């Protein structure tokens, strides 16, 4: 009797590290062969990539110990047998990658704007922030502060936008595009669902038109056609023209995402609000939109990731964003032929931003799944 009551341990082969390996990597013959093949490929590839990116790479000095100032001094160009990546180009051009051609004396303004952006985003990303209300006030006035800080005015010397570049332009385009597209997108989504046939038709046509054409045609529209539409004397800044195109583009996508959220609101919510005698705008502002936006935040983040990546398209109309600075550096005879280093760096910067955003949207999705109850039951 006693023997039978004793708890027997599971077989070693199904638990612990060995069990995990057996189940996940060596389950059967084909599985084991695949595992071995993958390990062999990784064994060939990983040491090579590590060697190229880190161990044989030049960061600031080449293998002779000299500080690198052009591509001829890179170890791999001095001695092809010796040396991997030449990251010195990033080191030398780092300022341009981050600020473009912003005057060095004024660069503290950009740095301040970067820090303030982080503070402005904080209450949006982290809802449990203490004193969130006050932080949100700051978020609302941040665009105005950033405009004067970056562009000049109010006692700051003016820095025209053709001196902006690199990450600065990428962030300005991404953040402004998303921030402006949000209210426009809400209006378009409400308009498309409106009972007034003319308004609904106009919003639908606008949304479907924008979604049916590539962003690059809209950028061309902003660059080539917009100046023709405006009366003489009004000279629009290049960056503003691009921003108009990017905002139009993003607001159509934003509208569709928010419309999805609106459709998920049970009709009872509308009926309840109306039975309390609320007007259309009160009902939407106080009852419908807060719920609809809350459930559409993950897809909003996803379209924002798309926009952030799409801001690279502005290089085609001659605006120098991060990728544009990279291409400009490559065209410089001092840094000819370092395309892999530069593209690797630019990809990494984009990857950090977009991967971070996508992780954040996953986290939100999980949070929403557990915490939502819209009174549908």
């Amino acid at each position: 009797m006693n023997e039978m009551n004793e708890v027997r341990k599971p077989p070693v082969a199904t638990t612990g590290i060995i069990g995990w390996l057996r189940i996940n990597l060596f389950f059967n013959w084909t599985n084991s062969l695949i595992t071995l093949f993958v390990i062999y490929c990784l064994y060939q590839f990983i040491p090579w990539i590590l060697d190229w990116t880190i161990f044989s790479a030049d960061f600031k000095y080449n293998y002779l110990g000299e500080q690198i100032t052009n591509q001829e001094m890179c170890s791999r160009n001095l001695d092809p047998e010796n040396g991997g990546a030449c990251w010195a180009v990033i080191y030398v051009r780092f300022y341009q990658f981050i600020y473009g051609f912003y005057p060095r004396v004024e660069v503290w303004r950009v740095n301040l704007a970067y820090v303030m952006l982080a503070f402005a985003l904080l209450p949006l990303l982290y809802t449990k922030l203490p004193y969130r209300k006050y932080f949100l006030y700051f978020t609302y006035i941040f665009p105005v502060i950033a405009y004067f800080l970056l562009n000049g005015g109010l006692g700051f010397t003016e820095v025209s936008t053709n001196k902006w570049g690199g990450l600065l332009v990428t962030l300005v385009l991404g953040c402004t595009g998303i921030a402006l597209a949000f209210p426009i997108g809400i209006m378009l989504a409400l308009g498309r669902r409106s009972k007034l046939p003319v308004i609904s038709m106009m919003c639908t046509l606008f949304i479907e038109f924008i979604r049916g054409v590539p962003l690059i045609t809209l950028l061309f529209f902003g660059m080539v056609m917009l100046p023709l539409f405006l009366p003489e004397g009004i000279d629009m800044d290049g960056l503003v023209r691009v921003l108009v195109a990017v905002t139009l583009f993003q607001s159509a996508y934003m509208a569709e995402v928010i419309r999805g959220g609106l459709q998920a609101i049970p009709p009872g919510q509308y009926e309840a609000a109306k039975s309390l005698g609320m007007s259309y705008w009160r009902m939407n502002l106080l009852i419908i939109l807060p719920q609809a936006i809350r459930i559409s935040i993950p897809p909003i983040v996803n379209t924002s990731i798309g926009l952030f990546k799409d801001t690279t398209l502005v290089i085609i109309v001659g605006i120098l964003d991060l990728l544009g600075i990279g291409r400009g550096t490559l065209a410089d005879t001092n840094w000819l032929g370092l395309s892999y280093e530069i593209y690797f760096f630019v990809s990494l910067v984009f990857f950090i931003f977009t991967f971070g955003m996508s992780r954040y949207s996953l986290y939100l999705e999980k949070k929403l799944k557990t915490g939502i109850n819209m009174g549908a039951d």
Partner: protein
Amino acid sequence: MRSNLGFFSDEKFRSIFFQTLVVGLFALGLFFVISTTSYNLEKRNIATGWSFLQNPAGFDISFSPFLEFKSTDTHLKVYFVGVLNTLLVSITGCIAATILGFILGIVRLSSNWLLSRLVYIYVEFSRNVPLLLQIILWYSILIQLPRVKQSLQVLDVFYISNRGLYSPRPIFESGFSYVLIAIVLALISSFLINRWAKKRQDKTGQQFPVFSSSIGLIFIVPLILFFILGSPLSFEHPELKGFNFKGGLVIRPEFIAMFLALSIYTAAFISEIVRAGIMSVSKGQREASAAIGLKQTWIMRLIIIPQALRVIVPPLTSQYLNLTKNSSLGIAVGYADLVHGFGGISLNQTGQAIECMAIVMATYLSISLTISFFMNIYNRSIQFKEK
């Protein structure tokens, strides 16, 4: 109880009032834009109208696989070359992205941890790096290939260099059209056999080897015909003459870069769609089909995939649309598609921005609508048919 605003609180009146207001404002804005635009155009001496389409283009297009293009050809022909190039890279890209995406999506669900992690890393990297950067990166890799004189040779007939991929060009001789007709007939008849077999199986339960008979019809019959007619097909091989290859079929690095970047980027998205689709089929379906003794391959083909497709097809459609629109990035590497050829060079030469952009946008809209239309038909055909 009526408010003191009188008839303004009447819903019908308000609806008409606001709509008239919106239409009026829109018309006013449109009038303003049109009048300023025509003034600006006149002032800058920009011609209007569509006659520029008949003017000679005056530039060359290096990649035009379907239409012969000379610099004396018209802008209208530039447009057609652009549309064909856009369609070429979009269609080949969609096919490659679908195949790669399905394979990766299934591999991502593999029980092998290492393999599935590897696909995960691939998906995250290619989704999170801008497509334009990937296109430029592929292009920069391709143009760093060896020069023509040192070109890599594959299987003695393909040459790879920084000018592109050179392969033999097939030359169709007189009898070849019969083979093509045979293939088309075989396709139609295998489609009919498929329908007949399905009907018979529904009625009697008897099965018919549809797959092997279709393969036989589509491949073997035309092949036999091909040899009976005395192989009416020969190849023109590329030959190195001077600094470049003469003859043969050339695939330019611009096209290869676009094709690789578009299909690899979109495949990452498709693989996630496929994964979500397969995971949406409940576990019970797999267990039930295993319990009635279906083979593993049959479970996938008859139970899992048909149900997963219902979830997969709508987002797949939007990926196809995205790929087609993204093919407009060819301008970054000089691929002569609609935007680069007609919207870029022709626009610069003629200066007629409004006409050119209107044509380009209208073309993309009609391509998008056509894709949506056909995918909607397909989507309807695979949805649940409730009896």
